């Protein structure tokens, strides 16, 4: 088994792995191009991984972090055995399951039950093993899926399809689990269920490698972090450390001023003011938000130098980054007054949560009176879950009243 010999199941040894792709200016797939144009000009070589070395012990949880095109997904595929490395060596010990796409291999004409067994065997699990977890799996996927388990999956809604795919993937207990950007599926309740299950796998000692753009998720889920940039490992350490360094890098690259850009938790600004104590105030007597409730986003803004009539703003997004609501004191022509160094203001946005159940995130900011210079910007500083009875799907509670009468 190469260097180091046999290791316990769940170990992954990646030694100096390079992975190249050919980029064709115009995809050449015909005999003529293949046979007669085998010159250098046909494809340009692109190295997606450049000498990556990584060792995982059983039970390690590692977050792969980096910008698009940094090689994270390629590295996952190399570990999963889908792409053999162009140079270097990869050894994974024990059973590997990859969740690079939920429900990969589901066939629309087969029933949910048939697909579960098919998918199980694609991931390398026997029928007898799937039998033992089948009921849990279906229960996990929810009552809608359970009712439809003997119907062809082409009749499923996309949500049901993903739930079933996720349920299959997380109930087969591999030694190494590889997850690529598939964590954000379904509503808040289902997401929580998914995370609980992944945490359970983690407690059971499954080695997990994850790629996600959701940095907060990564730092809560993973112990270790690896930052890839253009195919090279630029930093390793604890997930929290690496995520912090990566965030710092993003702020550096993007500078402090590009208002409204989705930055996954970045904090930046000139520092003329500091925002602290960001919190959500819910209706008295509860600590949850239900559709239609009054809520308030509050924070304290302290001036570090003298500022005139600063602007305070709030952006609300859905958990997938959908831009929902953006308002500030400038657009409302609302004066905030002048502050000397050290003076502070209490800012409060009172809102009505016309939102359907799901997770929402708030960004808060303070900027100069003309809005053109950011003093302090906290991307996704605050997340909250809206609960409520499921009567509609989507984001906005438009409060439909349905009247059905005789024509």
């Amino acid at each position, binding site marked *: 088994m190469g260097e180091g010999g046999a290791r316990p199941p769940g170990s992954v040894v990646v030694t100096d792995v390079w992975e190249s792709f050919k980029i064709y200016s115009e995809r050449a797939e*015909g005999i003529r191009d293949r046979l007669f144009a085998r010159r250098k000009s046909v494809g340009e070589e692109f190295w997606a991984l450049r000498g990556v070395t990584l060792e995982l012990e059983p039970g390690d949880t590692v977050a792969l972090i980096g910008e698009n095109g940094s090689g994270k997904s390629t590295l996952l595929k190399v570990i999963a055995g*889908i792409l053999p490395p162009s140079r270097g060596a990869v050894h994974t010990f024990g059973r590997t399951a*990859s969740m*690079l796409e939920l429900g990969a291999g589901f066939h629309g004409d087969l029933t949910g039950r048939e697909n579960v067994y098919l998918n199980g065997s694609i991931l*390398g699990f026997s029928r007898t093993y799937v039998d033992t977890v089948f009921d849990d799996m279906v229960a996990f996927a929810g009552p809608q899926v359970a009712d439809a388990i003997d119907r062809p999956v082409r009749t499923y809604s996309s949500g049901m399809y993903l739930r079933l795919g996720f349920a299959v993937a997380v109930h087969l207990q591999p030694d190494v689990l590889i997850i690529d950007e598939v964590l954000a599926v379904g509503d808040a309740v289902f997401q929580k269920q998914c995370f609980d299950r992944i945490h359970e796998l983690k407690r059971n000692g499954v080695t997990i490698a994850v790629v996600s753009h959701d940095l907060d998720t990564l730092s809560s889920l993973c112990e270790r972090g690896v930052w890839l940039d253009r195919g090279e490992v630029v930093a390793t350490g604890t997930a929290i450390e690496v995520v912090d360094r990566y965030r710092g890098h993003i702020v550096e690259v993007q500078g402090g001023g590009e208002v409204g850009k989705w930055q996954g938790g970045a904090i930046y600004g000139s520092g003329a003011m500091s925002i602290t104590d960001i919190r959500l105030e819910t209706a008295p007597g509860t600590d949850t938000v239900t559709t239609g409730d009054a809520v308030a986003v509050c924070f304290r803004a302290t001036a570090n130098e003298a500022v005139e009539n600063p602007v305070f703003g709030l952006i609300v997004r859905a958990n997938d980054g959908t831009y929902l609501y953006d308002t500030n004191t400038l657009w409302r022509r609302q004066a905030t007054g002048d502050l000397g160094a050290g003076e502070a203001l209490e800012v409060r946005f009172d809102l009505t949560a016309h939102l359907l159940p799901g997770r929402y995130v708030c960004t808060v900011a303070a900027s100069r009176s003309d809005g053109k210079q950011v003093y302090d910007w906290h991307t996704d500083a605050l997340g909250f879950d809206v609960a409520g009875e499921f009567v509609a799907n989507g984001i906005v509670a438009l409060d439909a009243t349905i009247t059905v009468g005789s024509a």
Partner: protein
Amino acid sequence: MRELLGARELLRNLTVRELKVRYKRSALGFLWTLLNPLLMMAVFTAIFSTLFKADIDRFWLYFLTGYLPFAFFQASAQVATGSVVGNSNLVKKVYFPRAVLPLAVVLSQAVHLLLGLAVLLVAEAVTGHFDWILYLPMLVVAIVLLAMFSTGLAMLLAGANAFVRDIQEFTTVAFLMWFYATPVIYPLKDGGPLPSWVQNLIRLNPLTEYVQLFRSALYDYRWPGLPTLLGACVASVLMLSLGWTVFNRLAPRFAKEV
């Protein structure tokens, strides 16, 4: 190879998927497995026993004993050609021994072949012929040899097609030519309709050997000549090793190409 043994269950499930999916939404479903060759038989029997007055005893049986093995071979190779490319979502997202993709196609076609042959044997029995019982071992040998050859070609085409999609386009015409180069609808004998040099060419076609093996068991009721049997064995082993080697050489690069 050991990896493939470990994927037995996957192979079985994929084979079942091929079979289920194919007829899932048709009213007659699995009956088509039998209806197709029977309809073909009706068409060719009508043409050859009236139009061309072919001098063949029990033409329907002569036709089916050639057509069933050829149809199995053609469907295996042709469907398998697209099996890697057609499952690109799987190939790109999950690791599993890639050979199961063409193998599942061949196995599912083998189920069709066996059903077809079973009906054929019943038909022979109904028309009062039981001689084939003696030659059943020969039939088994013929099936195994043809399956080996078909698997080899299926793997070769499936692997190559991932890199050169033209193969997919080319197979339709190629198999039409191959069909007419195999004695399914005409006799291969001296004094027949074909000049001897054409006959010699057709004898070079490995499918001719396989069809002759099937016919010796089910139509002529006699043991095949040793050259035919040996020729079929050599062709099977060669094609299977070629397909197997090429496919497994190419397999690691599939995820980048499909």
